[in-house]
């Protein structure tokens, strides 16, 4: 019998952790972008603009939630929910510290990848049901892109799982602590690169933002959304970015542990270390977003099928050989 209080507490932690992550990354993205472009960014919102995500949320709540006429309203209304659900699901597994984790499934990585592919459904139905040619094209492009980049994401993680011999995320971090070096330095550097590129594509961020290509498709599958539904897509996008960076730092950068610090205190400095690693990865993504133009649709697919997947397979081969040799 699962006791309800335990579930509620975990849900509370996950919710708090997720929403704060989305807020941090929104600030990072918008403020970082404006500094990079020689402008001050949002200023008059309060605290020199740093609480602007709060203002954003309130703005979208008071905006009218338009459902265009000949739209497939059932699907249209529930599409954002799928995307948000798939992103929330990922938070359960990521360990902030050995004890502070939603539930340490021993099939952690498997669960992670299964849930993250649910968002493809949400995006496709959003594009298809908006009865607008531009969002239809945006939705189809999103489907093609997310499925194409699912594969390198999984294959990159397989390398890590082979090296760590366990699927549970806490186990992977323990393995890195015991091994001394985080996986990115001990053999999984290539997998880390592939994972980051595939993660950028999963988040639909530039240079892979074809589904929301503003200059071609007005704003892809998001064109017809406004008000709270657009807010859900908006938060889901930044939460997705936060969680994928958190997963990347647990799998590759050693999770809640830094090689030099003593292991006993891990419960105290664990969360801080994980958050700094995630924010660092997030900053790299922001830097990439504002300095890259956008790929064309077929180049995007070529990169996935002809470059990333062979490299990921090669990485798995090398890891397994190294596994056998040592």
């Amino acid at each position, binding site marked *: 019998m699962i006791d309800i209080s335990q579930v509620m507490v975990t849900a509370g932690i996950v919710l708090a952790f997720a929403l704060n992550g989305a807020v941090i990354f929104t600030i990072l993205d918008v403020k970082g972008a404006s*500094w*990079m*472009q020689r402008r001050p960014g949002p*200023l008059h919102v309060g605290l020199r603009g740093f609480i602007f995500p709060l203002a954003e949320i309130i703005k979208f709540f008071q905006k009218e939630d338009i459902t265009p006429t000949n739209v497939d309203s059932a699907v249209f209304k529930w599409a954002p929910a799928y995307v948000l659900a798939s992103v929330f699901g990922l938070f359960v597994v990521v360990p902030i510290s050995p004890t502070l984790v939603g539930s340490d499934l021993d099939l952690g990585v498997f669960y992670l990848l299964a849930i993250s592919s649910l968002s493809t459904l949400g995006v496709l139905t959003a594009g298809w049901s908006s009865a607008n040619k531009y969002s239809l094209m945006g939705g189809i492009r999103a489907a093609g892109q997310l499925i194409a980049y699912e594969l390198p994401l999984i294959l990159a993680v397989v390398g890590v799982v082979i090296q760590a011999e366990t699927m549970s995320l806490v186990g992977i971090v323990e393995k890195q602590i015991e091994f001394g070096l985080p996986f990115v330095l001990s053999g999984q550097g290539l997998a880390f690169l592939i994972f980051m590129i595939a993660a950028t594509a999963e988040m639909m961020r530039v240079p892979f933002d074809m589904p929301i290509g503003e200059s071609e498709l007005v704003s892809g599958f998001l064109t017809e959304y406004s008000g709270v539904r657009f807010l859900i897509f908006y938060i889901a996008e930044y939460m997705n970015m936060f969680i994928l960076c958190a997963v990347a730092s647990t799998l590759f950068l050693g999770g809640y542990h830094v090689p030099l610090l003593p292991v006993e205190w891990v419960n105290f400095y664990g969360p801080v270390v994980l958050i700094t690693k995630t924010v660092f990865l997030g900053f790299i993504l922001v*830097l*990439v977003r504002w300095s890259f133009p956008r790929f064309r649709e077929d180049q995007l697919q070529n990169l996935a099928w002809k470059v990333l997947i062979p490299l990921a397979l090669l990485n798995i081969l090398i890891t397994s050989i190294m596994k056998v040799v040592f």
Partner: protein
Amino acid sequence: MKKFRPKLPGFLTGMKILLFNMIKTLSPLSPNPNVNYPFEKEIVAPRARGVIALDQDACTSCMLCARQCPDWCIYIEGHKELQPPAKPGGRQRSRAVLDRFDIDYALCMYCGICVEVCPFDALFWTPEYEYSEYNMGDMLHDKNRLDQWLNTVPEVEGLEN
């Protein structure tokens, strides 16, 4: 001479430029290219064509500016008045007095033909630019409003040789 710098792959140089930009924006040393408008005002060039100022007593309502205006946005009405004769016993001279001199800034395209054509130096340019209105009707400035702009006319600035 272009200083030798290792040729980073293209996108890394791009990211380097953005990083330097970020540091430049955050560091108080570098000049801030933005003007925080409502709180800081931008210094406008003295010759900027912001608004047209009218010097009422110089204007003899000769209608040249109203006729040369391409947009037909200057409306003038005047009447004649008798002046006391210059010398005692001389003939009474008549002088045109301005009744109405409106410039409709909703139509005006700030081309400056009226200021250039006026033979009596009655119209001047001022770099004033904060006179936007909520409804278009108020953009029709009458002659007293044009007179007020006169004191914002900048002094003559130095010239290149």
